[in-house]
């Protein structure tokens, strides 16, 4: 990326013998919102804290707006930060909270009042200026945190799981507000979350992390449709995994029985290396069918049926003893628990990974 506003290169952080971050390279363009997504302990918060200046890295460098951050303490960086715990000062009013950073910048009194008020209006907290935080709900507190971080016109906005402490409906509403405000103001933003749905909904690009490394940095669609790592496929969207073997003629044979021939992809030639592979199929890739279907099909028994509104999840045990989840459109004709079922899938839906979890290139859905 040529127009990188934030560029982190070769970041390494170790806690004793544990590598929290290991050679992480990440660039964020001006005005872009990038999420760091991964399970807890993957290093996403550590990376955010390195960029904020609260965690010193042993290796690598962070450059923002052409300025190296080496030796610059957090208070000298001019980054807004939003915390999972809100970190709203309980002894200050809402307005004083928002003014806190402006005071440190020596903003004149009249100017300050105006900027505080407009920041509060932006997060719909205008009427709450004189209240103390303990009179606010969690969502309102986080709006204070947001206004406080935005009002200093930060060079970079860092958000550390800002919505994790809110309930589900409010999370969805707040993430839309955050995204709209971020676009409107064009603030370059790094956003940490462990919620894949939130990451998909809010990001320009998602950086998926595991064990201190970046596995894939790509737009949401690409991360979902063309995962660069078996872990990415599993973490985002969830997958059912099957052991399989590639036979001559690009035929894939699942250990469970069915075989299918890989369709030619854009940059794929026939004649892949023969041998064991892992096949990933998402829940929604399966269809109920009859045994005569020409598509590859798996036979099993419904162990449990969970109604989820617009879909129903069938937990199916295959003849081999393995289980899978299939999400099928709801309807009265669905098999009951204990019924035998046949599930088919379109071969192009199958994603292939090597035993080392690397994707076998060319397997993307047009």
């Amino acid at each position, binding site marked *: 990326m040529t127009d990188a506003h934030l560029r982190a290169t070769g970041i390494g952080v170790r806690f004793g013998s544990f590598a929290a971050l290991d050679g992480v390279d990440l660039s964020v363009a001006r005005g872009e919102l990038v999420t760091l997504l991964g399970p807890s302990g993957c290093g996403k918060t550590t990376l955010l804290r390195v960029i*904020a*200046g*609260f965690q010193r890295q042993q290796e690598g460098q962070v450059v923002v707006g052409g300025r190296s951050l080496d*030796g610059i*303490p*957090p*208070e*000298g*960086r*001019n*980054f*807004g*930060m939003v*915390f*999972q*715990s*809100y*970190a*709203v*000062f*309980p*002894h*200050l*009013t809402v*307005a*004083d909270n928002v*003014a*806190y*950073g402006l*005071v*440190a*910048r020596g903003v004149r009194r009249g100017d*300050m*009042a105006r900027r*505080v008020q407009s920041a509060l209006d932006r997060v719909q907290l205008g009427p709450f200026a004189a209240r103390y935080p303990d009179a606010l709900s969690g969502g309102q507190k986080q709006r204070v*945190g947001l206004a*406080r*971080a935005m009002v*200093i016109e930060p060079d970079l906005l*860092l958000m550390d799981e800002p919505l994790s402490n809110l309930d589900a409906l409010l999370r969805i509403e707040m993430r839309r507000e955050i995204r709209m405000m971020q676009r409107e103001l064009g603030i370059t933003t790094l956003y940490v979350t462990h919620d894949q749905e939130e990451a998909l909904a809010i990001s320009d690009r998602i950086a998926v992390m595991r064990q201190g490394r970046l596995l894939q940095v790509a737009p949401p669609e690409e991360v979902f449709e063309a995962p660069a790592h078996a872990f990415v496929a599993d973490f985002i969207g969830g997958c059912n995994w099957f052991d399989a073997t590639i036979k001559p003629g690009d035929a894939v044979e699942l250990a469970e029985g069915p075989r299918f021939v890989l369709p030619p992809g854009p940059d794929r030639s026939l004649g892949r290396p023969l041998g064991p592979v892992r096949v990933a199929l998402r829940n929604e890739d399966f269809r109920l069918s009859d045994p005569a279907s020409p598509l590859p099909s798996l036979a099993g028994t419904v162990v449990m049926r969970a109604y989820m509104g617009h879909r129903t999840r069938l937990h199916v045990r295959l003849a081999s003893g393995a289980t899978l989840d299939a999400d099928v459109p709801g309807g009265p004709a669905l098999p009951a628990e204990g019924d035998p079922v046949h599930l088919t899938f379109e071969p192009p839906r199958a994603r292939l990974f090597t035993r080392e979890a690397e994707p076998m290139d060319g397997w993307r859905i047009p």
Partner: protein
Amino acid sequence: MTSLARLLRDPWPLVAGGVVLLLLVFVAWPLAELARQSLIGQDSGRLGLENYATFFGSSYFRRALANSLTVAALGTAFALVLAVPLALAFARYDFAGKRWIEIGILMSMLSPPFVGAYAWILMFGRSGLVREALAGIGIDIPPIYGAFGIALASAFSQYPVLFLVVRGGLARVNPALEEAASSLGRGRLAVIRTVTLPLILPALVTGTLLVFLGIIADFGTPSILGEGERFPVLATLAFSLYLSEIGAEPGMAATTAAILVLISLTLVVLARWLAARRTVANDTAGMRTAIPLAGRTGALLALGAGALVLLANMPLLVVVGSSFLEVRGVVFQPVLTLANYINAVAALGDALWNSLRFAAIALAIILVVGALSGYLIARSSSLLSRLADLLIMVPYVVPGTVLGIGYASVFNEPPLLLTGTASIIVVMYVVRRLPYVARASASIVYQIDRGLEEASQSLGVRPLAGFRRVMLPLMRPGLLAGAAIAWVEVFNELSASIVLYTGGTRTLPIAAYQQSLAGDVGMAAAYATMLIAITAVALGLFTMLRGRGGEVGVL
């Protein structure tokens, strides 16, 4: 950034270094010197365990050791019997007069233990009011001097600590656990035995330890109720060995002090081991609502608790009351007078002014150093701050008499010639009460979200300014609460200042103690009442300061 610039931006390492230095000089050094002296033979001057051999070879010294242990164990047992049922009742039930009874419990903490001891003598001493009255109707009870009296007086002055700690432990027990036990068919007492007590065991152990350490370290109570040499305990023994007018034995004093510290230390280690072994992960406690008790049960509970608390406060009432009575010889007359106060003020000298001055200066230092070091303990894991954490807690197990003797033997020559000065008393006050404020401040800091400081920093405010603008306002209520307790303790301090004072640095507790021991009973009562009154007024002030919340805003 140069290291100097970094220190200016973030001076916490400097603060940690300063605290450690202070504690090394004023805690580690005097104690190390005492340990050294205890290992140098009193007679031979040779290095070895000669003094310890002398100690355990002498039946008098052995008796002092046995007395100390007996009194502390008995007193702790009494305190447990008083405090645990009260704590259970307070944590679980609402009943009439609960607030007043609570104030009564806390009132027992207001005065130094020796004042209570003196009051027991006024009631049950050789010519005690109650004892005389009982003798008048033909009931003869033995005077209260000795082990039983000391244990009883100590228990009444120490039980509030145990009450507070145990009630705190009870408040943290998830009520759902007790409800679960009841729903499984256990009766009320069985629930307490099988669920509640095991869960509050760590608090119970801590509280018991505090009481035991308090009693075994106390100098005033055994000195007054033990009639000096007749019932020696380790604290009074160390004192008289060090300051005896007929040939002081500093080596033996050091040895006695060392044995006292070793006992305390052993108990602390034992208690920590016990508490750690039995600490169970406490799941998050739900809201505990006390069950209102109306009708006969409630009235009975209130009556029982009220009677206990009234009994515990009898000494206070007797002292205050008798301070206004005329004295003839050593006997109070039923005539109201201010004569005791007139005599007391005439003989006061600088004692009151000294007490106020020393305590105020010490308190200011305790607040600043306590707030800073509490913050360090909670937030920094550097070697220096861990060392500070360790050193700060040492005076907690060192009896005042021991620290006093240590100071007297170290600071009596250059480079730090402090004996006889006001500074040595102030420093001693600071060191003895720092653990309480530092601990209190650390426990508040633990509860404050680290994100607040990071938010402040990310908004462009330097760490030290952030500490002032964010942390201090949030720590203030806790600090003031800690300061209130520290004031009570410092203003009433006796056991170390009795070793260190000289004519010019006599304090009010010393004056009161001296009159109680062998002086005018009326003046003793007057001094004690002055101590109690000033402590109470100061506590009222702290409470007002705490109540006045609200922050001066920037807009």
